């Protein structure tokens, strides 16, 4: 393992295999919490924390428990258990530290539990045979990629609010079109690594 391979993992998770725009994971909060840059940033941070912690803990769970006992088939349920607990923890911390953010994230905060980006990340970590360090870099890359996508999208949506959009396209239709254009734009990174 060398530094450059870690860098490749990081960049590929952020840009090339962006979780939202290339892998299409975590679309629900991507569309739900992207009306304001500030909220989107908060969501990105929450997901970053959950992803980083989840990748460490699930890695340990996989190696120490699942592989040891030969019960890999329990992977999904065990990982969801880890993620759900982490989300609960994040929810408590956010409620304590920033009630405003807690209010604006609303139902999407507990919904990180079922955010397939997090579960997808942990399962990808295992299936690509990443070790601990690589998993952490992959998680950070995925989280930055998610945050990047959601913050960019929120910024565009903020400007769309003021733009002159045909009535039929107002709101979600134009948001979905924007998302697809962003996804196309990110295709440009393919072949980077």
């Amino acid at each position, binding site marked *: 393992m060398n530094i450059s391979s870690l860098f490749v993992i990081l960049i590929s998770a952020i840009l090339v295999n962006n979780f939202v725009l290339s892998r299409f994971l975590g679309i629900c909060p991507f569309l739900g919490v992207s009306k304001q840059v500030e909220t989107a940033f908060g969501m990105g941070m929450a997901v970053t924390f959950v992803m980083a912690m989840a990748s460490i803990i699930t890695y340990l769970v996989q190696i120490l*428990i*699942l592989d040891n006992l030969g019960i890999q088939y329990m992977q999904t349920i*065990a990982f969801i258990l880890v993620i759900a607990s982490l989300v609960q923890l994040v929810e408590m911390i956010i409620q304590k530290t920033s009630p405003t953010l807690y209010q604006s994230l609303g139902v999407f905060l507990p919904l990180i539990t079922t955010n397939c980006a997090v579960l997808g990340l942990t399962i990808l970590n295992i299936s690509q045979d990443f070790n601990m360090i690589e998993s952490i870099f992959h998680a950070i890359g995925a989280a930055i990629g998610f945050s990047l996508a959601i913050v960019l999208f929120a910024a565009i949506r903020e400007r769309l609010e003021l733009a002159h959009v045909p009535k039929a396209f107002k709101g979600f239709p134009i948001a979905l079109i924007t998302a697809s254009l962003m996804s196309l734009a990110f295709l440009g990174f393919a072949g980077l690594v």
Partner: protein
Amino acid sequence: MNIESIIYPIASLGGLGLVFGAGLAYASQKFAVEIDPRALAIRDALPGANCGGCGVPGCDSFAKLVAEGKASVDGCPVGGPDCAKALAEIMGVEVDVKERRVAKVICNGNKEKCKDKFDYHGINDCVAASMVGGGGDKSCNYSCLGFGTCVRACQFDAIEIVDGRIAKIIPEKCTACGKCIEVCPKDVIDMVPYEQSVVITCNNKETGKIVRKKCEVACIACKICVKACPFEAIDFKNNLAFIDYEKCTQCFVCVEKCPTKAIEGDLEKRKKAIIDDDTCIGCTICKKHCPVEAIEGELKGKHKILADKCIGCGVCEAKCPKKSIKMN
């Protein structure tokens, strides 16, 4: 199949769950947010319809505002007096319970009584209909269109469309949340006290001559009710009579006198005064105050109510120094 393949998953996942659970329990202590216990109690005492009738989104927000003292305990129009009392108890404040009010459609001009301007075959909705042909298909521009926009807005099933396309509000179910008033494009719904049975059911603000041509049951601004009312409870504004509900004693005189029957009131509900002979001392006070001379009797003699003249206004009951008059 060995027993281990069952034991391992159960033990490992159970163990994980236990560890995480313990961790979360610790965290919840550590990061506990103090929520005003009164807010929770208030939330439980509220109806929980999240209708927004109080002006804030949802019962939770309202409960929080009340607990912080930023909203009045009687601010929930749906819960009514009972809810206000419960909230006042939780907050430890006094509340003078407001009279219960209900929404009322102030129009009786159904398809038979109010003439059509044209046949409407459009979207089945008052707002849509009110945009066509200068305010809908009815010749009266102030009338209830009866397409049920309010019925759909009502969360309590308290509105129905009766024969001849007029919305009717069932007072028993109405919670006075005000949703119907908001959505009605004709502003033909008003709030009246629950106990009030005498209500002017016309909203037309045009002069009598014009109104007469349009609707059989409209207020034609003849002012007969104003003159007839013994308590000066009726006044006129914009060619329309309106009742001062504080002064109205529900004597139904105006209901009887109105030439177009534009004042609603169930005469069956009219009360009659009864004098208790045992306690009447013959002071003639009631006789002097009766607006319709329905009491006869000499000084120091027992008084008698002339049932066919009595309008059940209750003035004598209030004036009798011996409390020997009852309304029945």
